[in-house]
């Protein structure tokens, strides 16, 4: 019975992974022109544009919160708070190119404020999904999985600023320029933080 439940959970996770891949493709197809139009409509207080913004970004912002170490419930709350803040500061959004960085900066600030208020709260991990890969030998697969687990834990233990750079650039797949805007720092500063983070990870992972 337990095995069946585990199998069902794993299948659900794999289905989610495939959906996530499809969503990623969709996000990349989301052309600059459409993004500019969305921002223009947002600035004109278009209600449907706000709903479209939620459709496109709610999963990304939720996973951003999870990857920053918040648990499920808090991540949902902080995702809502991020959108609420975004609407109240919609006048500050300049153009389509700035949309990603702007929204992630708001979400990052919401997360930062939460950590500041709950200093003693532990970082909540997010599970690594097991992907079927017939090419690898079983023992190689175990070793590889352990390495990923080690890396995941090393990322979680990084100081918050360094963790944020890794999450923004590698996990959320933002460009250096977008990630720097999201972290509210210059590109040069972001690159140097990223290097420091990578150096720390290289030391931690064997």
């Amino acid at each position, binding site marked *: 019975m337990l095995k069946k439940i585990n199998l069902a959970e794993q299948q*659900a996770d794999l289905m989610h992974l495939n959906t996530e891949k499809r969503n990623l493709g969709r996000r990349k197809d989301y052309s600059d022109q459409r993004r500019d139009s969305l921002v223009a409509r947002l600035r004109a*207080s278009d209600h449907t544009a706000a709903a479209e913004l939620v459709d496109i970004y709610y999963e990304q912002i939720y996973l951003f919160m999870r990857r920053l170490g918040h648990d499920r419930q808090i991540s949902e709350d902080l995702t809502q708070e991020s959108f*609420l803040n975004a609407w*109240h500061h919609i*006048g500050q959004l*300049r153009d389509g190119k700035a949309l990603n960085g702007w929204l992630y900066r708001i979400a990052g600030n919401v997360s930062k404020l939460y950590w500041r208020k709950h200093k003693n709260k532990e970082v909540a991990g997010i599970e690594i*999904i097991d992907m079927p890969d017939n090419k690898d030998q079983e023992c190689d697969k175990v070793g590889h999985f352990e390495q990923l687990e080690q890396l995941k834990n090393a990322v979680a233990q990084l100081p918050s600023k360094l963790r944020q750079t890794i999450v923004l650039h*590698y996990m959320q797949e933002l460009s250096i320029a977008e990630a720097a805007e999201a972290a509210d720092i210059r590109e040069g500063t972001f690159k140097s933080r990223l290097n420091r983070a990578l150096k720390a990870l290289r030391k931690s992972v064997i």
Partner: protein
Amino acid sequence: MKEEKLQELLNELSQRVTEPVNPDLCEHIKQQIPHRLARHKIGWDTVNIIIDLRMSKSVAAAAIIITMILLVNLFGGRDSTGGNLFQDGMLLIKYWGGAGKSDISSSRTKYEHLLHRGEEVTWYGDSIDPEDSNAVLMQHKLADGSYVVMFADGHEKEVSSEELIKLLTRILLKKAK
């Protein structure tokens, strides 16, 4: 570990550190979309316009401060006691028994007065329940970044931005229910 291998592992990790998102979350957030998205962000719009002109933030701030000093000098700071006069007016209205809607209308007058002065104020009075004494009628951003919040029963409180978000979230959640 080599850098290339680390990058490869990080890229793989980004694909595998994921989980299903609660499908109700999207609808729940959409329900909270305020009727009017754009608030009266006069101050920030000015800052953004100046930044858009490719001026640095410090130059933009200096330009705004100089403009404000010039305006204060021009008008001789005659509005400096306006706030106190307004408070007295509110007390008189209360004394005459005009609670509830009169609080809202007098707050509205104050909002329009502050807006006219170019202050960063936001009005929520059109979408709140007047029976809820803790509903936020208006927010007024102060120069130090904190906010003065006026409630439906007429009392005022100075709060931080975090406290303000909490107050507004509570109202939105109440409205969503």
